[in-house]
């Protein structure tokens, strides 16, 4: 071999060897494109008001909520992770079920889960990074308007797992043009230009629950008829998790100087767990009324009736429920002949 051929061949062999070494020791993991957003904290600097509202919400606490942790056995029931720490909704698509994520679980259902657009989606082709209500590619997060963002189908990716959106569809509200965000993410101060409140009040807000149902009673012969009407919820009462219940109790009115009598359970509004084969679904549809006669000899005179809201389904002592200790009072009325 003469002249420059030998050294050139040597360089070539060295180059191939180097390539072989790189091929062997190159990391196995697929190299992802750098994520635009690693944490919802990054949104705070520009969206402080929204962030602060969200931080108080139960979406933010989806992973840390003590009740969820108790019901899921600290997420030992990994089935719960799909909705409580989900991958971005737009990754799987509006109306499609979400998938669980591994990272940032403590951030619950956060800005990224709701707003981040997929890298290979149609919006990304036009430069959009997040879903918003208007296009603004000059903003740091490059929002593009996505109409589906406020739709019931969007909320339904998680909340229709317990049929809440289906319940809404069965009501008169769709025809009236009232959807989830109208009650749960209203415009701040009722002003469209102020944007939507991200506190997302729901069943944890007892005031909202109070506005959702009415409690009344009337006389029918010598007995009382108690009525509960779902006046304000866009879906059944209660809704979403099967752990929630609305319990109606009554008790005779005690004389002024004596101890109040014990509460007696009249009715429960709840959707049972699947293994509770001896129970039936008693959820109260939107705008429906349930009439409950109080057929007890002790109820002939004046009685007190109360509706309680319970987030865990079982009483500590089922034979002697203590609603004032174990549940939240929604409404209380006194019925006097």
């Amino acid at each position, binding site marked *: 071999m003469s002249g420059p051929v030998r050294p050139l061949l040597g360089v070539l*062999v060295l180059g*191939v060897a180097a*390539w072989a070494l790189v091929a062997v020791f190159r990391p*196995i993991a697929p190299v*992802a494109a750098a994520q635009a957003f690693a944490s919802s904290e990054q949104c705070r600097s520009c969206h402080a008001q929204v962030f602060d509202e969200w931080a108080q919400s139960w979406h933010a606490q989806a*992973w840390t909520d003590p009740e969820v942790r108790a019901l899921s056995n600290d997420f030992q029931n990994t*089935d719960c992770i799909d909705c409580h720490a989900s991958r971005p909704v737009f990754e799987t698509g509006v109306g*499609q079920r979400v998938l669980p994520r591994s990272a*940032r679980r403590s951030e619950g259902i956060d800005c990224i889960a709701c707003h981040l657009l997929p890298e290979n989606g149609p919006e990304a082709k036009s430069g959009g990074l997040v879903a918003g209500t208007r296009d603004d590619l000059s903003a740091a997060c490059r929002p593009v308007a996505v109409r589906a963002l406020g739709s019931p189908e969007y909320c339904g990716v998680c909340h229709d797992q317990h049929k809440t959106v289906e319940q809404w569809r069965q009501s008169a509200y769709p025809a009236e043009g009232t959807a989830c965000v109208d009650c749960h993410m209203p415009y701040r101060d009722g002003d469209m230009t102020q944007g939507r409140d991200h506190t997302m009040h729901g069943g944890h807000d007892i005031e909202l629950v109070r506005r959702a149902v009415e409690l009344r009673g009337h006389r029918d012969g010598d007995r009382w008829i108690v009525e509960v009407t779902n006046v304000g919820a866009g879906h059944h009462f209660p809704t979403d998790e099967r752990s929630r219940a609305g319990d109606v109790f009554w008790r005779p009115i005690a004389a002024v100087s004596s101890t109040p009598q014990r509460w007696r359970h009249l009715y429960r509004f709840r959707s049972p767990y699947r293994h509770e*084969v001896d129970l039936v679904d008693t959820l109260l549809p939107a705008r429906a009324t349930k009439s409950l006669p109080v057929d007890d000899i002790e109820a002939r005179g004046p009685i007190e009736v109360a509706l309680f809201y319970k987030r865990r389904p079982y009483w500590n002592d089922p034979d002697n429920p203590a609603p004032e200790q174990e549940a939240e009072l929604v409404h209380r009325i006194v019925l006097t002949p």
Partner: protein
Amino acid sequence: MALACAVLLASACRESAGLPEPFETRPVVAPRIAALEREVASDPPIAEPDPELTERVRGLVLDLPMLPSKLRTLQLDEIASIGDAALPVLAAFVVDDGLAEDRRIIAIECAAAIDTPRSVALVAEQIESARAPRVRASAARALVRSSHDELVPRLLLRLKYEMDGETVVWLAVALARFGNYAGLDGVRTLASTDRDSEVQAFAREKWEELASAAGLENGERLWKAWNDGDAIGRVPRSEPSARHRLALWRWIAKLSEHDLRAVDDARFVLSRSDASVVEPLCEALHEKDLYIRVHAAQCLERMGLRARAAGPGLVGALAEARLAPAAAAALGAVGHSSSASVLVRCLDPNADPELRVAAARALASVKHPAAIDALRGLLQSRERSDVRQAAAQSLVMQGHGDDAAPLLIKCLIAPGADASGAEAALEGWLVERTQRGESEAEGLLERWRSFAGPPGETPNPQAVATRQRTRAALLASFVAGTER
């Protein structure tokens, strides 16, 4: 020549390094189901029984309770010989909620004796839907002698929802007939609790009987052998029938459903199936439908050591970005020999954060020095906080909590950290130290637990935060004291 050698060397090194081939997805589930449906003979329609046959079957059923045992057996054989033609009459007894339980139970026993796919399906429906626990228990008991393994997924699903102890035990016995010991969890729990002494005694009896029938010393050995993936090859196995395989593939198809309840049921059934489900699940990792791919990996994870054979399939699945985190989680659980090295490579700083966190968590179950070293390396402050916390929690599970405790204590109060996860890990660390015989740790654990609040009561978020701050202060001074 040198060039050719270098290329060959590179390829060989790539293969031996276990680097994944490009990952292909394709329709898998639908073709499998279609093929098995062709293979499984469809049952001919059952003609409406004529009055004579109806009377004959009714008579046999009604006479049964009055017969002595030998004649009873003959009577059941006679009903069995009638075959599916008897089913319309039996079904009328079985589904009649208003009928006396004893009559329904007799009819269920007769249906089970026929032992055809349709007859056992009728019996299985009673386990699923009968309101009376006694009817459900009798139906489960009646299937103990069935030869139709396609029932296994249905019986497994029932384990998820059944609340009656006797039924749970009979389900376990029926499942064991087919080499599936997933029911042992329920039997084990019932055998050790004393809520109902009759059920407890029954559970204990069957616990030992099942072990003896399997040729093992006791129930605990059988339970361990089943859950450990039967490394000793002692658990009886059977090859699934075409109907059983079809049933499994149909459950895999349910992983794609929108209703999470259906998906949860499928995950429950598949993860409790025996090792014969591993191959279909590994095939399903290549399914075009993303939901099936991800949930198939989850099922393998939940099978744990029983899915050890899935290792190579899961390593390959790491090449698919959206599947990789679930595959990493599964790799940690199945205990494959290559898990350690592969998962450590998934921690690469350039990898997808989802994958890195999943791999850090998965390393909790991988008993290998490389896993410990890699996890320790992740505790550095320049790492993402969720990666560091996942690594710290895994170190505790690996018995190296001393390295992780300082970080986890900070996680109890750091904004954005998973304080509840840190809490659980730190309690595990205190338990580990107590078990080492450290009396100071024992006292600390007692104080730690005293902040838990009354049992059965769920604290509100503010109370939880207060508890976590108090525990952080408690442990911080302990750790500071031990470092001095």
